[in-house]
């Protein structure tokens, strides 16, 4: 573990851990800005989904990772943001107005959900949020005059200042929103609000005895998390261009929880890693499905195997990769492996790889871990 010399209170919690980090983040941003000029819109589309999921991941990180409250109903907040957007757009509101308003509106809903969270803990809170998700889905399906019920709503392409946003324009909008949300989240975590969240996560009793208004901060956490998810919902609605209640089912909420579990609960970086994994896994497996038979062909030809063997291998490979359900199996195995062997998620793994390369050849298994963990808040 590297040690820093601190000469200022601000040093104890900098926005960026080091100068190198600033440089690499700048490179990342530059790469993302250049992406539309380098990539086909298929890959751009994946990036957009990653950004939307990353925003949700950040929202859940604030709620679960920082404030320690569970939610398996975040699809409902996504739905509220999405439907708010569809309705606002239909009534002629401009994007600059309805995008933040979607966040505010959803934030209010989140505040209301936060109220029962004052009394509920752990699994009971999870069930309450789950019930909330069902209620929202039901309301959307029933309130036909506004939501068009189960038939769903089509959204015209978004426009900003009278200009229709094309694929690239929308990509940049998502990028901008993602950067803003991440910066906002970092600052929330650094602020006294964020510290109160952590205090509540570690011990509610201790937090209260130190004068933290736990009721206020718990509902704040819910409102913030919901609001950010609502903004993601707004982008999601535009990305999909069609929304219906069944698109915000329980499985979507579970997806969101998986983002932070796979990515790592402890940091915002984890939320982004998790989003990348959740979105990219499927396209990668598809590429694998398309390419594996070809590679198998090259290998068998390279080995000068008889034709019958070549054909048999190829047929076998293509049968395996085309088997329906293979993807779900691989996905499931990856997740199980992660939960067992890397509970800190992708981000935890990343940190260890970094530490290993820094300390090479002196790195030891145990040096990745701090010598003693006093509090859960030492997770960062």
């Amino acid at each position: 573990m590297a040690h820093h010399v601190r000469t200022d209170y601000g040093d104890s919690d900098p926005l960026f851990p080091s100068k190198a980090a600033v440089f690499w983040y700048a490179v990342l941003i530059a790469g993302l800005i250049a992406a539309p000029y380098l990539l086909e819109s298929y890959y751009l589309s994946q990036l957009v989904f990653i950004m939307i999921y990353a925003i949700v991941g950040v929202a859940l990180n604030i709620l679960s990772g920082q404030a320690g409250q569970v939610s398996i109903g975040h699809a409902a907040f996504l739905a509220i943001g999405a439907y708010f957007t569809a309705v606002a757009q239909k009534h002629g509101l401009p994007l600059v107005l309805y995008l933040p308003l979607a966040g505010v509106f959803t934030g209010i809903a989140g505040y209301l959900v936060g109220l029962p969270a004052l009394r509920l803990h752990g699994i009971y809170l999870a069930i309450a949020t789950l019930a909330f998700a069902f209620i929202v889905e039901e309301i959307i399906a029933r309130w036909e005059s506004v939501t068009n019920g189960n038939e769903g709503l089509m959204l015209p392409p978004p426009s900003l200042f009278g200009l229709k946003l094309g694929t690239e324009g929308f990509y940049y909008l998502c990028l901008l929103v993602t950067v803003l949300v991440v910066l906002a989240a970092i600052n929330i975590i650094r602020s006294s609000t964020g510290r109160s969240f952590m205090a509540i996560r570690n011990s509610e009793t201790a937090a209260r005895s130190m004068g933290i208004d736990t009721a206020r901060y718990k509902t704040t956490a819910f409102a913030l998390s919901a609001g950010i998810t609502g903004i993601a919902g707004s982008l999601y609605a535009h990305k999909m261009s069609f929304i219906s209640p069944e698109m915000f089912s329980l499985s979507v909420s579970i997806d969101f929880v998986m983002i932070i579990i796979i990515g790592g609960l402890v940091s915002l970086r984890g939320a982004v890693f998790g989003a990348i994994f959740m979105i990219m896994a499927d396209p990668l497996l598809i590429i694998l499905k398309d390419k594996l038979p070809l590679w198998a062909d090259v290998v068998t030809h390279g080995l000068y195997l008889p034709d019958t063997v070549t054909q048999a291998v190829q047929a076998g490979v293509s049968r395996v990769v085309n088997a329906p359900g293979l993807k779900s199996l691989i996905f499931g195995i990856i997740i199980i492996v992660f939960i067992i062997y890397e509970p800190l998620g992708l981000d935890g793994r990343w940190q260890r790889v970094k530490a290993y390369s820094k300390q090479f050849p002196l790195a030891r298994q145990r040096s990745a871990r701090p010598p003693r963990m006093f509090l859960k808040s030492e997770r960062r």
Partner: protein
Amino acid sequence: MTSRFLLSAAIVALTGLAAQPALAQFKTQGVTDTEIVIGTHMDLSGPIKSWGVPASSGMKLAVEQINAAGGINGRKIKLILEDDSYDPKKAVLQTQKLIELDKAFSIVSAMGSATTLAPMPLVQGAGLTHLFPITAAEFTFKMDPAKPEDRLKFNIFSPYYDTMRLGIKYVIEHNGIKKPCIVYQDDEMGKNFTDAYSDQLKDLKMPEATRVSFKRGATDFNSQVARMKADGCDLVALGSVVRESVGIVTAAKKLGWAPTFVVSSPSYVPDLHELGKDAAEGIYGVGQTEIFYPDTATGKVKEFIEAYRKMFGVDPNLQSTSGYDGAMAFAFYAGLAGKNLTTESLIAAMESGKVFEDIFGGAPVSFSKDNHLGVSAATIGQIKNGRWVTIAKNQSYKTEK
């Protein structure tokens, strides 16, 4: 640092605004001298895989047969199939992959409502045709005259609304029904059935009677059935899919109640009597094609069943025929378009009004310039001695008795 980030991001966002998609133009890709690439996405591992797997198999068989017979004007079809797990997000990405990486000429027989509606603007935006999706949603064929890109979508799937309306009309007219009721699944699909129910009764100048609903996935229907029995319904329209339909008729049998039942396309499948046994006897059903049985099939249907069995090791079902028909209809119209196959020539061939007939005795398919829903008629069957028996073909609720 923050402000610099914000500034650069903002500048970029504004420059990005300049990028605009061109007005929809029809585009042709994926056609070479020897090959036509078509793409599709179905649910092979999610909640509706019982539809996706057989439908995709039917499609693969059709492609195999078309290619074995020399292809379409000398071009072989290359089918690229993706598994969307009934996730609209995946469907969007996969459609983009099919369009951009695989250069598909057309998206044929994609499956599901949300999973086809979300990616559809992408297909239209690319100027490619979106043909015969396996969903009856109106968006898939209804055209807005102001939107030229709407000419790119065609469907041959009988809307649930149409089949339900026809079923209610037929049974009321033939069985002297006094009090028709409906039980329906409370979702998008169910709404088609309740709309059909109220419109048809209005048409027949009959008062509406009991309507009861259930949630998707429900397993206990006793209260719904008891209520309809208490209200004295003599016809029960089942706005449900197979498992729920079986649950409802079984509950009725347990209560010793035997009204006339009528089902629409989602339940017009052999599973209904296979699962429902005695309770399903006498049910009327309306669907797109005649239902076939491997042991009694003859002619082309028999050949189809044998080829399917040989290729996949299982018997085909009704779902298989939807994928098979999609690919066959594509081959028929692409063949009509001639050697110079482009998106324009394909659309012209389809809008020519030439009739495509499938091998299963389904309603004839034809399109025109202002109608892109290819079917207007359906088949009516009844379960007799544990099998669907066709009692009327080429029926439509629009025609007079």
